[in-house]
């Protein structure tokens, strides 16, 4: 999968170049390694614009960059699809690296980067990011299912109390009403709960 992707469509990289570290020098090494450096951001505002306009696959940033908080917001609040971020840390900063694998951050590179070392790290970042994204999606689905189940339980409880129904009858009534009105069971339950609040 990776080989095909890098052969036909090279990974598009965005470099954040706003610290003393010579990130710009990475440009040549990355290009040689078969990546497409689509843009370089000199600051946070430019980084935001470039994330929007260029949709990079991977963002490469120094751990000491002031723009890191900008990426945290994108990752946590999901304004834009989160992207894997590769970071460059101070030499010997490995504990920080291990500790800081956060929402948007999937890999760190410790200083003195050789072009040969970059490719596997970037590929690893991408694979790990895709895994994380899948996991997150599954978790989200599970949370939604749980929330829906809670809604249905509450709606069932309201029916049981108001109409003196058994649990099974209340559920059957909800289901048949949902089918008749073409609503999802959870959506009907939400409406029932809301209107029962209004009716007191």
């Amino acid at each position, binding site marked *: 999968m990776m080989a095909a992707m890098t052969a036909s469509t090279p990974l598009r990289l965005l470099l954040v170049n706003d*610290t003393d570290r010579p990130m710009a020098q990475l440009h040549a090494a990355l290009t040689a390694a078969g990546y497409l450096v689509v843009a370089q951001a000199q*600051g*946070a*505002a430019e980084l*935001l*614009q470039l994330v929007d306009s260029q949709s990079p696959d991977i963002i490469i940033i120094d*751990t*000491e*960059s*002031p*723009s*890191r*908080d*900008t*990426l*945290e*917001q994108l*990752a*946590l*609040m999901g*304004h834009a699809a989160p992207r894997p971020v590769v970071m460059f840390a101070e030499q010997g*900063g490995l*504990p*920080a690296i*291990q*500790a*800081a*694998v*956060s*929402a*948007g951050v999937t890999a760190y590179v410790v200083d003195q980067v050789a072009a040969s070392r970059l490719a596997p790290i970037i590929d690893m970042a991408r694979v790990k990011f895709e895994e994380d994204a899948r996991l997150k999606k599954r978790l989200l689905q599970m*949370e939604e299912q749980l929330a829906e189940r809670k809604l249905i339980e509450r709606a069932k409880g309201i029916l049981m109390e108001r109409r003196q129904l058994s649990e099974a009858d209340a559920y059957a009534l909800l289901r048949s009403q949902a089918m008749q009105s073409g609503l999802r069971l959870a959506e009907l339950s939400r409406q029932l709960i809301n209107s029962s609040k209004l009716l007191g």
Partner: protein
Amino acid sequence: MTVPACLHTLNLGFVALTDCAPLVVAQRLGLDREMGLQFCLHRQPSWSAVRDKLISGQLDAAHALYGLVYGMQLGLGNPPCDMAILMTLNQNGQGISLAPALADAYCQGASLMEISQQLGRPLALAHTFPTGTHAMWLYYWLAAQGVHPLRDARCVVIPPAQMSDAMQAGVLDGFCAGQPWHALAQQRGVASLVTDSAVIWPNHPEKVLACRRELAQQQPDVAGRLVQALLLACHWLDQPENHALAAAWLAAEDCLAMPAELILQHWTAADAGPLHFCDEGRVNYPYPSDALWFLQQYRRWGMWQGNDAAAVVASVNQTALYEQAARACGLSLPAVHDRHSVLMDGSHWPDYSGSAPSVGALSQYTH
């Protein structure tokens, strides 16, 4: 006070803001050494860096956004890490600025929605960190005025030092941050302060002294002495005659690297609620009710769905350790440990009504 022969070194992180003053002042006045400590101050380029270095142990403690600590504790955007808040460092002193033309319209009574409609697009507003105080002040301010921060506006993060440039480039319509970054934007004519943060929540908590829970639990004596040194610094900072000297220290190249006059300007000029560092200790108590407010706001904006907010707060806010340290420096303790406040939308905090947690008068403005 006896000075121990051997000083215990503490690496402390801070971000270039006026309210990092307690750390700088404690060191300059030698309060750290009086407590048998040696502060090494490390300016950090981002809150993310503060967070990572607290987790990794490169920093023992730090000047931190109240919300940063709870984001770390709850694992919002990072692996969860057991954290401690040792004390509140300051109240107030933040603000919201808008581009000059928008600020004029706003001050003449135009609503934020009207301004946004005139622009023909959602307002582009910046804060400083997703779980931070400025994000929560900005979101609350918008929601209280009928603007949903996540739907009707585009809220992004820009580092405070880059706010002026972003305003000048027209990338932003406004921003919420600490000082002296509003003063700088105003001086450059690219933004005007429209709301002092004390208008949103009078005497709101702002920065705290944060460390990993481990330090507070395993070295309570060191943590206690750290709190004492900073309490003395906070008390010193609240004396108006000391402001000029503190501003001069903050102006240094390795600190804020900004002119002292600019730093001093806002400090003395706030009309709504001044920047307080101590107020006889009323500022510094790590009130559980303050922390609960942040958790409630995270829930409001869909950032946290957890339970047991009270238990989380009881484990993070180190009230017992604080009380001991405050007594040791002769500072009085607040009579009540829940601060009562009325916020800009008229809602009370904490909410004693016993009903479901209120999310402000405009409760429809939730996630």
